[in-house]
């Protein structure tokens, strides 16, 4: 077993706020898939918000502190080497905090001061490695490992893989990406494509896989978000996709909600199903739709998966 695979067998799990709310099905399916694959998740104790967009926009250093506290608990209290965050927002913010602590003495100073005030160990850059759920499965198990554990198949299901923006941007906070064969690409990410192809899906050519969905503006400028999402969905359908696979709770809920809104507000009905990649993988691993929370998505696609013979 390679060092990376060994390291990813047991990771600190940082679900983040969204997975305890609107993205409950992502939480459920991530944990179910981990169990089915024999990969251990140990939830970060007493975790807090990563700072998300609200704190970051008001006080970026406070966001760096909040993210660093999560990593501090994982490193100092739990003695873990790896933190896995399935939410793109959390993943992005932890990576950003890591970068800032390594490159900006002022950030390190603020984090140290606030950590002492809060009474926990100050996180030092490099103490843990933050990864996404895609890294966890792709690198912790590998495609062959996944293939060996399949109990079903996605049976040629046509999938457009939507990664959203925070998984790859800005490039400088993801130094492990764009490192040649085997590494993830920031311009054309492929880890989700790779995993779902092993599970029997057919990935369509989808040029908007990292395009902006206007997610952060879904409340303040709903029409722009709806139009951006509608265009993404139209592109997926034009590419022949039956399903859009997601790996971010913000993207996912944005796509689902604006799909409904696009029909109500602009009379533009679309049919493509929007599901988390962990839900698709779970069904290919022989888990029931309920075990991966298909019924908990905004649009229940249970009948669709039954018709396809996947559920």
């Amino acid at each position, binding site marked *: 077993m390679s060092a990376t695979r060994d390291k990813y067998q047991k990771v600190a799990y940082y679900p983040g706020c969204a997975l305890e709310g609107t993205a409950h099905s992502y939480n459920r399916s991530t944990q179910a898939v981990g169990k089915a694959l024999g990969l251990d998740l140990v939830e970060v104790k007493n975790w807090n918000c990563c700072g998300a967009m609200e704190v970051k926009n008001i006080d970026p250093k406070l966001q760096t*502190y909040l993210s660093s506290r999560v990593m501090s608990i994982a490193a100092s209290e739990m003695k873990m080497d790896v933190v896995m965050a399935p939410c793109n927002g959390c993943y992005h913010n932890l990576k950003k905090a890591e970068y800032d602590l390594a490159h900006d003495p002022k950030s390190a100073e603020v984090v140290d001061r606030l950590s002492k005030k809060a009474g926990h160990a100050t996180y030092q850059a490099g103490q843990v490695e933050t990864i996404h759920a895609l890294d966890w499965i792709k690198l912790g198990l590998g495609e062959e490992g996944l293939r060996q554990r399949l109990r079903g198949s996605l049976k040629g299901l046509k999938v457009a893989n939507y990664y959203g923006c925070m998984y790859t941007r800005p490039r400088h906070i993801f130094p492990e990406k764009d490192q040649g064969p085997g590494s993830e690409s920031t311009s054309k990410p492929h880890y989700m494509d790779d995993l779902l192809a092993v599970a029997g899906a057919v990935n369509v050519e989808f040029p908007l896989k990292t395009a902006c969905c206007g997610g952060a503006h879904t409340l303040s400028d709903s029409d722009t978000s709806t139009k951006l999402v509608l265009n993404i969905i139209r*592109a997926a359908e034009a590419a022949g996709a039956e399903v859009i696979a997601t790996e971010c709770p913000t993207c996912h809920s944005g796509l689902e909600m604006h799909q409904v809104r696009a029909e109500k507000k602009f009379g533009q009905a679309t049919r493509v199903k929007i599901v988390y990649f962990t839900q698709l993988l779970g069904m290919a691993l022989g888990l029931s739709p309920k075990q991966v929370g298909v019924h908990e998505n905004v649009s229940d696609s249970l009948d669709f998966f039954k018709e396809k013979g996947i559920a």
Partner: protein
Amino acid sequence: MRSLAVIGQRLEALASQPVLDAEAAPELLSLGEEVLEHWVSAQGREPTRDTREGFRLLALHRQGCTDEPSFNACRETCRELVYHYNLVSLEPQHPGTGQRLRMMTLVANHLFLFVAGKLQVRELGDFCCASRPLRQEAAPPDPA
């Protein structure tokens, strides 16, 4: 330079056509350039006539990112537009040309929607793509 509304209508008209021929590719690329010209002009700059990697679109995008890292949110969209232009231009007789043009239209439309949205709400793309720099001058005071 046509207004954004006119550009949007033209893109919608192209998107609604069942079949496009290869001549639509340069028009779509040009529409993308016009969209970026709007953004650059709104920043008080003269839209560049330079090219980057052989394309004015990419030079305009680069120019549009000056002092505005969140504009990188449309970097891949611009590159996909160029990629599809290349596919269609290099192989106009390819059996997939119709589909490539369909995708190119939706990519150009996405660029239009993003820039039009960002001209109304400047922060579009700020949270996700720019990871707002910590050391910006306007940063608020440190927490206590």
